[in-house]
């Protein structure tokens, strides 16, 4: 009998099969992944997740008998009070007599778990950041060291023994350092001659020559060191600055009384998607939450989404705040700046001019991308789109005309969030202008 320990064998033998399965079901999985956004809370978005797809895509048909029809006999255990000849109502759905009852087949959806990477891959497939390459920056932070050959000086712990020995050997050969064997041979010969009792004259001569040779060799050996300080080689490492792409995302939201929970939820979903997307593209993403009524404040996430503040609506206050924070902490030459603003479109009419000028003269020049999301009421999505334009929409419309990295969309239902997001970030051909 043998016992073989297979635990150390590489796992993941099924990985190839799993990938093939995903490739085969790709179209369906992708649709399921996108649909899953509808009923998933934001927090779970980039977790591992279970998805279900229709069985058709990956069905393996076989010849088998139908579950219904014909005459069937079956034996069952656990009779309580049936007697021969009793009649039982046929249960609906073919169970009871169905040959394949309990096999779990049928038209249920096929469920399985996608890993986080697989999920994100499918979810954000063929999206891209606008102008991502333009401002990839070298950050101050050094992200590691790499091997950079050998040096003649260094700390003992970095001593490269093999390289040092190699050098030493080369030097010894070049300088013809006598080997130990050579010296030993001469010593042995001297010993044999010395052992002769009556020393013949020619032996004495020979012994003398040998002694001279020996002294010469020993002196050479002493002069030419086995390992010399010039042989020492150290492994050299050098710090390598890596380009660090960092981005900051400003989330702006109107939290005045006119914003309902539903609207905030829509906004939150959009922000979450943007964050997810940015964190995949940049190594480091910071988020700044600014909410405003007629005054703006930088707040934490919890307050941002869940606090209620009463007051009027002054969009420019939020823009002012944004510019202030950016100037303070996120200088545009070090950061990629993304701005996402969500609002129901309310604004004081007289504020519009200032909003336009702030947006055009200050924010747009420093930002990579600005997205304005106008959230409507769930109840009357139709009304929301056909309604006369809101104040803010009127203000922004000409800005969007003029700047390709400013985009605006209306959203009334959470199902529309993802399509809108996709539309905004769809991979485009070079030189093509973003439809706005």
């Amino acid at each position, binding site marked *: 009998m043998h016992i073989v320990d297979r635990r150390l064998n590489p796992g993941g033998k099924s990985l190839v099969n799993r990938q093939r399965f995903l490739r085969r079901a790709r179209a369906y999985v992708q649709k399921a992944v996108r649909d899953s956004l509808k009923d998933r809370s934001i927090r779970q978005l980039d977790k591992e997740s279970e998805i279900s797809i229709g069985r058709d895509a990956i069905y393996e*048909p076989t010849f088998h008998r139908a579950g219904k029809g014909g005459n069937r006999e079956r034996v069952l255990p656990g*009779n309580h009070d049936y007697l021969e000849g009793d009649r039982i109502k046929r249960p609906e759905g073919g169970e009871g007599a169905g040959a394949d009852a309990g096999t779990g087949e049928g038209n249920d959806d096929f469920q399985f778990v996608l890993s986080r990477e697989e999920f994100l891959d499918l979810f954000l497939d063929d999206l891209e950041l606008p102008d991502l390459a333009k401002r990839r920056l070298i950050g101050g932070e050094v992200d590691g060291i790499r091997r950079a050959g050998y040096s003649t000086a260094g700390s003992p712990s970095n001593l490269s023994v093999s390289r040092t020995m190699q050098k030493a050997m080369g030097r010894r050969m070049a300088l013809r350092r006598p080997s130990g064997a050579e010296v030993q041979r001469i010593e042995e010969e001297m010993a044999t001659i010395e052992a002769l009792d009556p020393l013949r004259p020619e032996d004495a001569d020979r012994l003398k020559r040998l002694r001279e040779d020996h002294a010469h060799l020993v002196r050479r050996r002493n002069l030419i060191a086995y390992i010399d300080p010039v042989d020492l080689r150290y492994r050299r490492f050098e710090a390598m600055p890596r380009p660090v792409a960092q981005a900051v995302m400003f989330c702006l939201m109107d939290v005045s009384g006119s914003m309902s929970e539903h609207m905030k939820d829509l906004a939150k979903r959009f922000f979450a998607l943007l964050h997810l997307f940015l964190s995949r593209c940049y190594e480091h993403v910071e988020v700044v939450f600014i909410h405003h009524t007629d005054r703006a404040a930088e707040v934490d996430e919890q307050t941002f989404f869940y606090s209620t503040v009463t007051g009027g609506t002054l969009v420019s206050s939020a823009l002012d705040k944004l510019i202030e924070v950016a100037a303070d902490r996120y200088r545009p030459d070090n950061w990629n700046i993304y701005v996402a603003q969500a609002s129901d479109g309310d604004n004081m009419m007289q504020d519009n001019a200032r909003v336009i000028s702030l947006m055009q003269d200050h924010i747009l020049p420093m930002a990579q991308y600005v997205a304005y999301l106008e959230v409507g009421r769930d109840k009357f999505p139709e009304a929301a789109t056909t309604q006369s334009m809101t104040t803010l929409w009127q203000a922004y419309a000409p800005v969007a005309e003029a700047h390709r990295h400013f985009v605006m969309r209306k959203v009334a239902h959470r199902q529309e969030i993802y399509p809108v997001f996709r539309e905004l970030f769809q991979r485009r051909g070079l030189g093509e202008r973003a439809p706005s």
Partner: protein
Amino acid sequence: MDLRAETPLFTGSDWDFALVNRIYEAIEPIAVDEMKLNVYPNQLEIISSEQMLDAYSSVGMPLFYKHWSFGKQFVTNEMLYRKGLRGLAYELVINSNPCISYIMQENSATMQALVIAHAAFGHNHFFKNNYLFRQWTDADGILDYLEFAKRYITLCEERHGQLAVERVLDAAHALMNQGVHRYPRVRPRDLRREAEREAERQAYRESIYDDLWRTVPIGAKAATIARDERLAVLGLPQENILYFLEKSGPQLAAWQREILRIVRLIAQYFYPQRQTKAMNEGAATYVHYRIMTMLHERGQITNGAFLEFLQSHTGVVYQPTYDSGHFGSFNPYALGFGIMTDVERICMDPTQEDREWFGDIAGSGDPLEVLKDIWANYRDESFISQFLSPRLIRQWRLFKILDQENDSEIRVDAIHNERGYRRIRRTLAQEYDIGQQEPDIQVVDVDLAGDRLLMLEHVVLNGVLLDEGDTTMVLQNLANLWGYEVALSEVDAENRNELRSHQAQPQPEWMR
């Protein structure tokens, strides 16, 4: 003899290799010397739960070719396991020589003893002795053959593209159940030689290839041959559809035929397992129950360990009743183990009824001899139809229902009484008869003179037709492999009336 003479093999639940070795050495003499089991040499392999999931998804084999359907299996198992809906089997055993048993590192020491008794001796003895396995499978060559199959399919993927190979495999898998020789006794196949044979054929084809043949003008069309002659030449009727395609499919390339062959040989390898589920599990469960009990009687395992074993054992042989809400079908462990312990009782302590029903074994006094004969010479269907006793029918309160198409209600046809025993036993045995459960589909004719229409026939038993949706899909695959139109007619077994027919045309893009 002092039954408590020995000290326990282990006390806690931890185990190490030395302990597994000691357990094996304690079990081996019981199994081989006392129970006289005849087994292949054993090889135990310790694997992690993750590796068990891997093994699950390639039908339990240590190596297998790549196909998306195994990935599908894997994701299903993984999800069920992670959600805690399904535990993993404690062991997996492969019918090979040496017999490989996978045991999981998560098992406790008691469970390791249990699975060694169950797999390394129970299943192992069954594999080596049951006539179906001896007749149909080649335990010596299977691993080599799988290795060859894997290599061959990878090679095909490199040469012809993954997609082309996948299409052939999909189609072949759909017909896998129709890729088995059921009736003729095949000569034992030397799977080891399969690889060499293929290489030889390839070399021969290359050596005789001559481009000139392409230019030879084709002569006048041969006269139509008589039907009998045609059928004889093509070997029709043929129930092994994959075999027929491999030998006679007009459109298939050599590598496609070889893939069909691989799928069909593997199907053939698993064919006995499908016919002996209850017996195989029953035998293994009976063996482990006996061995564990003996170990306990001799004091080699502690009371605590024995209770742990009993808990696991009773879970395995639990049979829910039809109205319990989770009844799917009979639990093969419960059915097999139940009948085998009952045979033991009949041998040792028969009642008058047993003497009437089982005159030849009642009171024989040597249940192991009887059981070993059963394990060697029966399959599920014959096993149940001979050894399900009236006592068990009463104990399980079995009843038989009759569901007729032209009746609005289901009728209780037999219950556990004198009139019902034999009818219940016959019906239950039929449920385990693969010939009754699987549709009888055969290739009956090919229209060689015309448009090469391939004709198949399904002989309908009891008016149960084929599942419409699946049949259309499988037929489409069959048409793609055949390359011409395919027609399947469903014919009533009694009066030969055609009940329904299906057709499929090959998809032109399939061969690309």
